[in-house]
């Protein structure tokens, strides 16, 4: 389920009280109003969490649709759980990750991704991507947002690392060097280079 599907399931009247409560938390009850941009952002946060509600298998498919506030609560917990699962995946990836000397690869995986987890805001902005995903990986679903996108990215890097590990490290570096003598500074995908004939 994505955000637009959630918006079809729940009317604006059902969603607004939940957004209102979130706005209260955002302003610590010290401001009775928020800007339209902020309200839209909070609405997106609610939709994003509700979109994760069905991943808990409590289920939209059974036909019993809970109130928006309840769906949000379950979805919010699902997103938190997902963050810890993805973080665990990342930690395992880092036990064998090798950038083969490519700076962009190293910076994206070793610096940017931890930054994502550091600043990822599940409550008020779970749909934000946080980082620019500079290391290019083709074939990713760019419609994904927030932790979904990060999970997909880490999975893709994991697979790429598995592929690269099938070759001796020296061979990989030789091939990269033969493709570009300063491959360390280039913004290309290592697997693509390896697959070149």
């Amino acid at each position, binding site marked *: 389920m994505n955000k637009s599907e959630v918006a079809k399931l729940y009317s*604006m009247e059902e969603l607004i009280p939940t957004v209102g409560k979130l*706005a*209260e938390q955002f302003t610590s009850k010290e*401001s009775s109003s*928020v*800007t*339209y941009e902020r*309200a839209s952002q909070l609405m997106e946060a609610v939709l994003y969490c509700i979109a994760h509600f069905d991943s808990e298998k409590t289920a939209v498919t059974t036909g019993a649709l809970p109130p928006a506030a309840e769906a949000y609560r379950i979805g919010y917990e699902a997103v938190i759980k997902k963050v810890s699962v993805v973080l665990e995946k990342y930690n395992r990836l880092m036990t064998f990750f090798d950038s083969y000397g490519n700076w962009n690869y190293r910076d994206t995986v070793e610096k940017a991704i931890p930054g994502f987890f550091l600043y990822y805001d599940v409550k008020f902005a779970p749909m934000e991507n946080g980082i620019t995903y500079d290391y290019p990986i083709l074939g990713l679903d760019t419609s994904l947002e927030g932790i979904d996108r990060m999970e997909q990215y880490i999975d893709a890097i994991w697979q790429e690392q598995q592929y690269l590990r099938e070759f001796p490290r020296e061979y990989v570096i030789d091939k990269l060097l033969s493709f570009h003598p300063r491959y360390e500074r280039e913004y290309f995908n290592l697997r693509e280079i390896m697959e070149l004939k």
Partner: protein
Amino acid sequence: MEQDFYSVISAQNQQELLKTNEYTCNFGLSLTKQDVAELMNRRKECLMEQQRVEFGKGVLEKLVYSFCDSDYIYQENYAETLARLQDIFYLYKNESMDELTDDELIDVMREAFDGECQGSLEYLEETCLEKFAREIRCNTRKFIGRYKRRDE
């Protein structure tokens, strides 16, 4: 989506606003049902104009309790002054980049209204708060604490 937000904002707070008459009558001020309805309409227009969304009770009640004992407000100009104060409030919530809480902004408005502005809403809007908001934008931090420290 914008229209939906505003359509949900209803006049359910009208009764609560009328209840403030019980307190403000001590100062010779009261609002009629028509005044309240007009204030609510103006609130809606103002929120749309300033691109803001209000979820709770709104700020009118706070403005009433904060300004009702001002020397410059009397029955004849009460409703109109409240409406203008409401406009000014939302305008400067935006102009101060939401750095101020509702209570902080109201406190500053009240202090300036009775002091420097001598009851002039134009002076409050165009001079006092303009200067105040500019300083906030320069510093982008909670202003009140800084303001108090400077006065001490």
